[in-house]
């Protein structure tokens, strides 16, 4: 296992180098001149020339890449051209928000999705199965932004229970923070819960029809023990993979949901930066999310070992 772990970690380095090249290269493929976008309405030629020089836009691509990577290796991700804040500060500002939102959404998704999947599989063909499937279909087919706006209208405008937007740091006021985060977390968690439910259900169905489950039942084990101890563990492997991927997606920013609820996380940061051609911010954020993705995948691989002891050999 230790050897496997080492191998996995060793593959991360080339992956990251490749990712950094990809991020940088794709950015350059974006049409339009960033200096022109940043120069604002006036399009003053001296300002454009200044911005071109500042962004090294006239240098060849490899040189620009070297400038950027050189900075990254020193921990300097550059500075936002639009509002002058260091990219590292921007990321550190947004990261806790995004992590909180992702964690809350994932908890909601797990709390709903896995039990619903188990119930649907165990009670296959019953009314519970139908209900769970209906829920999954609904969750998968409801667009996040639409559900978000409906929830704002219901809980903020009509009932006045929750704030429509306005992020508050949990260290400032925990209740206000939860009040602001619960709706976006639910909207995000809802869609993932549906995916998790479908996968848990199909994995469970497969496991429940396996020989060893029949043996377990024949041994006279209680159904509860058969389902939760013997079947669920085996069924969880694909669900863990999926969960890790979904968590990675959440960490890279829930673009639409963050826009609707004005949650100042990665999603909003990256969208605004792309439209403003704020290159250094886009590159920094994508690099961080790519690293998070890779790390989560590694963690998912490790989680297999915990869930399924046979792999430990």
């Amino acid at each position, binding site marked *: 296992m230790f050897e496997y772990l080492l191998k996995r970690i060793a593959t991360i380095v080339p992956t990251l180098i490749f990712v950094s090249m990809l991020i940088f290269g794709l950015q350059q493929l*974006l*049409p*339009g*001149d*960033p200096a*022109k*976008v*940043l*120069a*604002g*309405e*006036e*399009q*003053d030629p*001296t*300002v454009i020339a*200044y*911005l071109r020089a500042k962004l090294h836009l006239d240098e060849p691509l490899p040189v620009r890449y070297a400038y950027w990577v050189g900075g990254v290796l020193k921990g300097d991700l550059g500075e*936002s051209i*639009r*509002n*002058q804040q260091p990219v590292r500060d*921007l990321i550190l500002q947004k990261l806790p928000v995004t992590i909180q939102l992702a964690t809350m959404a994932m908890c909601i998704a797990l709390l*709903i999705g896995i039990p*619903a999947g188990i119930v649907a599989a165990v009670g296959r063909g019953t009314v519970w199965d139908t*209900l*769970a499937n209906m*829920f999954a279909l609904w969750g998968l087919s409801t667009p996040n932004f639409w559900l978000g*706006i409906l929830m*704002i*209208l219901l*809980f*903020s*405008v009509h*009932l*006045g*229970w*929750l*704030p*429509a*937007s*306005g*992020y*508050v740091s949990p260290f400032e*006021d925990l*209740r*206000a923070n*939860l*009040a602001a985060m*619960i709706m976006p977390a*639910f909207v995000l968690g*809802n869609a993932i819960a549906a995916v998790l439910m479908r996968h848990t259900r199909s994995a469970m169905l497969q496991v429940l029809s396996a020989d060893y489950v029949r043996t377990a039942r024949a041994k006279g084990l209680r159904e509860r023990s058969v389902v939760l101890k013997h079947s669920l563990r085996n069924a969880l492997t694909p669900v863990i993979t999926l969960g890790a991927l979904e968590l990675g997606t959440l960490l890279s920013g829930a673009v639409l949901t963050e*826009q*609707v609820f*004005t949650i*100042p996380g990665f999603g909003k*940061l990256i969208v*605004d930066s792309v*439209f403003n*051609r704020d290159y250094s911010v886009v590159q920094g954020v994508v690099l961080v999310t790519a690293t998070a993705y890779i790390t989560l995948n590694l963690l998912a691989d490790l989680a297999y070992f915990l869930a399924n002891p046979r792999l430990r050999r």
Partner: protein
Amino acid sequence: MKKPSLAVLAALLLAAAPLAQAQTLKIGLAEDPDVLDPSLARTFVGRIVFAALCDKLLDVDEKLTIVPQLAQSWEWSADSKALTMKLRPGVTFHDGEKFDAAAVKFNLERHKTLQGSNRRGELAPLATVDVVDPLTVRLNLSAPFSPLLAALADRAGMMVSPKAAQAAGATFGSKPVCSGPFKFVERVAQDRIVFERYDGYWNKAAIHFDKVTYTPIPDATVRLANLKSGQFDFIERVASSDIEKLQAEKKLKVARITEIGYQGLTINIGKSELSQQNPLGRDARVREAFELSLDRQGLAQVVMDNQATVGNQWVAPNNPFYAKNMPVPKRDVAKARALLREAGVSNPSFTLVTTTSSDAQRLALVVQAMARDAGFDVKIQATEFATSLNMADKGEFEAYVLAWSGRADPDGNVFSFHGCKQPLNYSGYCSADTDALLTQARTQRDPAERRKTYEQVAAQVLKERPVIYLYHRNWLWAYSPKLAGVREIPDGLLRVSGLKMAP
């Protein structure tokens, strides 16, 4: 299965709904402002925030008249090449530094020399600044330049603390120090900008809030929902489709102000070779026919839900510099067809480039339908903004939907667009006569004389139609009925002085 769980959570959090603090003014913006340094700032939305943070030498009022702010009075020399300003005594910056003539000199020079400054163009004719005495400053120009006053009533007239600016260098914008009614507290990008009341403000009596917060929410529906639920006291840029309902409901107050900018269609008539390859760019009669095929009132109605004033010039018909000799033409499809026959083109076809914003795309669709009646085949090419800007600059377009946010002085709406080789002249229009007139208007201080010059400019430019001006949008604001003292100034910037929240 999930609704109950949500209800339980919501009920738990019921008490968590934040209580509104009476002394904080909460404003919802449509975008996140750019850097908060008056020299470097580039966006419209940034100017809204500056209105509370940085006082200017001059200001404009509801009628776009120049009024005093940090300068109490001003006087031009006989040759119009020197402007002497008397400054307001007893003004201090947020760091306690004194505002005086030396500070004005520092600021104007900073605008002109700071790397990447966007104010250079507005202050181009400003040669030197003399400190006459601590409260008198003289601006010496290389040539007469009447738009200077309007520039000093905008970002070029904003004064920052010289001491803070020198200490902060290029990063001044992340912690700006000015002399406005509110001072900078913090900014979390894309989340909030917080200011608190400056106790040393010269016009303290007009300030009735302890704090101002600006929160960017790009989606108009969500912005309005936040206003309705009490998260905001004021929002800018309400969606035009929401206005009628808001007015009928009478729960919120609404302000509609005709902008100083415009919405128009820029036509490539000489920017690149492409202009000569299609009849629209080649032949002024075809452009006239195109204009005659458009029903401006209809456009304003369909595209802007009537929240716009139709016009045919770079300033709105209610502007003192509107050229009355060139009235808004009526739609005349028969005449348009006749003109096309005369030009010898039966079914002219061209591509109209638009950005991907919903307003611009809707505009393009309605233009396409209207022009079809006269025999035009308009193809629409929706392009992301940055790309469209590049295409415009290189002349890789035949027609382009382009709006301008406008400047208080007409010069700011016309010089850079119709002067030969100017940075915003995307149409490629160039005429020595027009250039001479535009320069002449810059030297004239008497409004009546200037209007006459602009009438001549209008007669020349509108005949060639490098830009077909369509309408002037309304700035649409909505705010709490308790908020009093909202001044409707056409530049679309909310002034916080005098705003008051009724108990």
